[in-house]
């Protein structure tokens, strides 16, 4: 009886070994799932919370921020400083300085909820490393936005032109050159 069960156990065991080997071989012929990090990166999830950033308005190539200071008041850590001024020919104020103290920010998102003009959002930027403390406790978001606008203007020369010129007759006309420079010069 016990010999019988021992023999049966042996056979079951051997069969399970071959099953295991079949499974690993099956996995081995499937493609790699590694993301070679420094060479390639994954797209960050929509809910990812990096530091906040100013949203680039694709229609104007500028920020939507009106320096209303609601985010400053909403921030529980008091880590946002906003300065704005009124430019001639514009109805609302526009932002001139937006400093974030990321060392005290808890990424709660209250500022984003409070913003009436959807001018700020969480960035997807996680490659944040610096030897300089000032890079974190005085993050100049306006400067970041300007850098972003420059890149955006170079990569989207035609789309920024269309709303600025408001020319419905020939939207594909090859004249976006001066328009593309417009957001840069202003």
């Amino acid at each position: 009886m016990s010999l019988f069960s021992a023999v049966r156990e042996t056979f079951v065991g051997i069969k399970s070994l071959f099953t295991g080997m079949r499974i690993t071989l099956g996995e081995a012929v499937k493609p790699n799932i590694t993301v070679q990090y420094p060479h390639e990166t994954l797209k960050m999830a929509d809910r990812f919370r990096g530091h906040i950033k100013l949203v680039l308005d694709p229609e104007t190539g500028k920020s939507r921020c009106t320096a209303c200071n609601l985010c400053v008041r909403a921030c529980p850590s008091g880590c946002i400083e906003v300065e704005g001024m009124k430019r001639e020919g514009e109805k609302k104020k526009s932002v001139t300085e937006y400093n974030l103290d990321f060392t005290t920010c808890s990424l709660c998102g209250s500022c984003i909820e409070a913003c009436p003009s959807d001018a700020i959002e969480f960035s997807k930027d996680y490659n944040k490393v610096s030897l300089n403390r000032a890079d974190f406790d005085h993050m100049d978001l306006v400067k970041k936005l300007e850098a972003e606008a420059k890149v955006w203007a170079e990569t989207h020369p035609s789309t920024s032109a269309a709303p600025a010129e408001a020319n419905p007759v020939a939207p594909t006309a090859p004249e976006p050159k001066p328009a593309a420079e417009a957001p840069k010069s202003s």
Partner: protein
Amino acid sequence: MNWTAAMNFLSIEPVRLLLYLVGICAFVGANAAYLVLAERKGAGRFQRRPGPNEAGWGGVLQPVADGLKLMAKQMIVPPGTDRLLFRAAPLMVMAPPLLCLATIPFGESIVARNLNIGLLFVFAFGSINVMALMLGGWASRNKFAIISSARVVSQSVAYEIPMLLVVITVLMVAGTLDLQELIVQQAGGFWHWNLFKVWVNPLMPVTFLIFFTCMLAETNRAPFDMAEAESELVAGAFTEYGGMGFGVFFMAEYANIVVGCSLATVMFLGGWQSPFGALSGGLWGPVWFLAKMYALIFAVIWIRWTFPRTQFYSLLNLSWKILIPLSLVTLLLTGAMIKLPLLLELF
């Protein structure tokens, strides 16, 4: 100096042996280096990652980088060790596989020294490997190394028995210890291989499995790598070795795998014989031999990355309670199958 004169010079016995020796050293060295890479690549493949891929194209220079790193390191002899044994152990662990490969026929005429007791020779020298690991562990004056030594010995004793019983089974079928003769007997298609000689003994495939399992255990491969269980014993018997001393132990493990797989190829898979009868002779011999050997090595890597490490007791149980009775059964069955016709003729 013309071609025939050069060939005559090369075929002088001492010159020929020297050339084979150099060739075998190069073969073992290259295999040890690149099987480490193959192992790591295989590990990656089975876990769906690419493995080492930064050094050179797809990581082909990784063994060079590893070797340079190991050679650049100092080989420290810790205080309190037995200096002579400590130094001798890496040599002793590397020498047996080199010696064993001298008798292994890679092709019809490619063999350094075909002995008429080749099989015995291989097993005699193969068991020195265990002694070298034991001495290395003992000489290290390190508790992990000594525990590992004890494990190596008990594991080796346990698995040497079923392995030799299986070898005896093959010997009874073949009737020769000559490896070249053993291969010649398996000529003419894969159904003539010892692995599939079921009319001689219906348990012949089982015999091969026993041999393969014992080979894994003898070379301290996962799932039987109790001797160097990293999670328990740091690096096992070579815990105290640094630099190339460690490197030699590491290379010897792969050299032993090469020897074990070559032996399995010779004994069960027909050595350099073609599996279909066609495409045989000349350069096809070594091609078939190496193809079979590397297929077995792939299986070794495959097994390592499939099964977790066994417990030490279940390791010994597997040998004493399953493999040894099973190999005895195959031995008896073979004996009966060979002698029964003769017995029947008497009546």
